[in-house]
């Protein structure tokens, strides 16, 4: 088993959570984590792992902290 801390920001917290620890039997990609949380692809603008901007295809490692941000474009 591996553990990933997932942090959600802004609108992504609605009906979800601010921070949660998730367990996986196999190392998931960021996209897989987002899918599990019901986050549509277009609602994920930025993904950071341990504070570094990464591709959403990235495979997570045990102990990683994943932060997901939605697109904000209003003026």
């Amino acid at each position: 088993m591996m553990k990933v801390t997932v942090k959600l920001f802004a609108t992504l917290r609605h009906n979800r959570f601010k921070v949660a620890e998730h367990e996986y039997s196999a190392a998931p990609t960021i996209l897989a984590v987002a899918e599990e949380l019901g986050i549509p692809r277009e609602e994920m603008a930025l993904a950071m792992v341990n504070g570094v901007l990464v591709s959403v295809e990235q495979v997570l490692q045990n102990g990683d902290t994943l932060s997901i941000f939605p697109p904000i474009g209003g003026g």
Partner: protein
Amino acid sequence: MVSLSEFLLSRLEGEMISWQVQQEAASRYKQTIGQIEEEILSAGFLPARYQRNRKTISAAEQLTLFRSRVTVIGCGGLGGYVLEELARLGVGQLVAVDHDVFEEHNLNRQLLATMSTLGRFKAEVAAERIASINPSVELVPIKEVFSRENSERLLAGSQVVVDCLDTIGTRLLLSSVCGELAIPLVHGAICGWFGQVATQFPGEDTLGKLYLRCTEDRGMEKIYGNPSFTPAAVASLQTAEVCKILLGRGSLLRKRVLYLNLLAMEMDELQL
């Protein structure tokens, strides 16, 4: 008749010149209010309207601001507040770009949207508002859609450009043009309780990173809209960045983005 500098010197109060004297000088010496302002600041004195600035911004810095030109793209939620704050700060030349007119759904958050400005061009209303606040400031209203074709003309001579747009595609165009013209860009965007601010210098690609995955022209604000306080908060942070760029002071939001959550009252800094 005594010289203008002698006239001003004789009417100095502390180190300040009152608005009344500034007006009197303009009419007596047949100069614009702006020219008199430059004369006052160049002599190391301060128009009295800036007296509450002076322990934060020196007279020399106030002159730098007065001689600066800033272009604000978008005169809606963010742009209205940014223009207001830049004019009160004393930035001498502003260019306000917006092709749109005020509509009823702007009234909940856009500073320049009032009952009497509904249906009027935002850029023109901005010019009137700024003239009523600070007649030393020259505001050029541009009622055009920002595009690659007009970009060079609109941004020429600006020390800073402020991104107050509301579509992602145009923001990316602006970012790319600012890179080509070597002009720093202060980005702000809002959505409901949330907002983001970043400063991008030429050679950096902060906006490209922020919107890399975006295929649509709008973010989550298409669902959540924007309340009154989010544009004011983000616009104020943008104006502080503009002020620091113009004065070469402080730490800028370069290669990072400040992500605001006004619901949880959290600010997160993301390194990009």
